[in-house]
């Protein structure tokens, strides 16, 4: 996972670079919570651009970070969600709570 901080926007981006399963999500979770607690972002974005595979562990990971971010008053979004991932998120019914955005920029302007 690559972590990007955008200071002036209090934006934190987690770019996931590995397959998301039970094994990898536990490692990502620890790092992500550490970053959120340290940076206290207004907005956290999971970028799934490089994720080819994901199972239900991805749902738990995203919901868990939604909770961490919320506890600091931040919101959570996702981007670059491919069709496979989208099907899984839809099945879990979390897209209302954690929306998919087109890009980082659009939101900043809008």
């Amino acid at each position, binding site marked *: 996972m690559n972590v990007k901080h955008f200071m002036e926007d209090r934006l934190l981006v987690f770019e996931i670079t590995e397959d998301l399963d*039970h094994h990898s999500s536990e490692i990502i979770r620890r790092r992500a919570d550490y970053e959120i607690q340290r940076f206290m972002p207004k907005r956290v974005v999971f970028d799934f651009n490089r994720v080819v595979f994901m199972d239900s562990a991805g749902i738990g990971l995203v919901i868990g970070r939604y909770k961490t971010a919320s506890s600091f008053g931040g919101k959570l979004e996702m981007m670059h969600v491919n069709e496979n991932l989208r099907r899984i998120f839809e099945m*879990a019914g979390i897209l209302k709570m954690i929306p998919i955005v087109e890009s980082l920029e659009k939101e900043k302007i809008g």
Partner: protein
Amino acid sequence: MEKQVKNEMKIELLSKSANEAFARISVAAFASQLDPTIEEIADIKTSVSEAVTNAIIHGYNNTEGIVKIKAKLYEDEIEIEVSDTGSGIENIEEAREPLYTTKGNLERSGMGFTIMENFMDELSVESIVGLGTKVVMTKKIKKEGTTY
């Protein structure tokens, strides 16, 4: 007519989370003999990952055990069996409900069985408390175009 088994394989793994990727990639590679679409391969990988993860975290509760995976190829279908000799499931019907989980504290979402059900064509779950759990799932691999 009896369905004819064209090929068969068996893998046994230690219940370590690092083996989850190995398990799904191995089954997907085996399934590729049926010439599935990318979509079908993705469904198989996800379902195997769900079943193997369940054996590791629920069946063995992260203690050491053996997860068995068997796969059979038929003309246009794959059958995958994942079993453990762990804790077993008390109420299978309840366990298969969407969002039902006994490990919410570990960030499980209770969507594993729902995903397997949706991504595969058939799913059967047998379990005996104290003895273990066996999940059998099948998926039709649609043949498109001409075969040579």
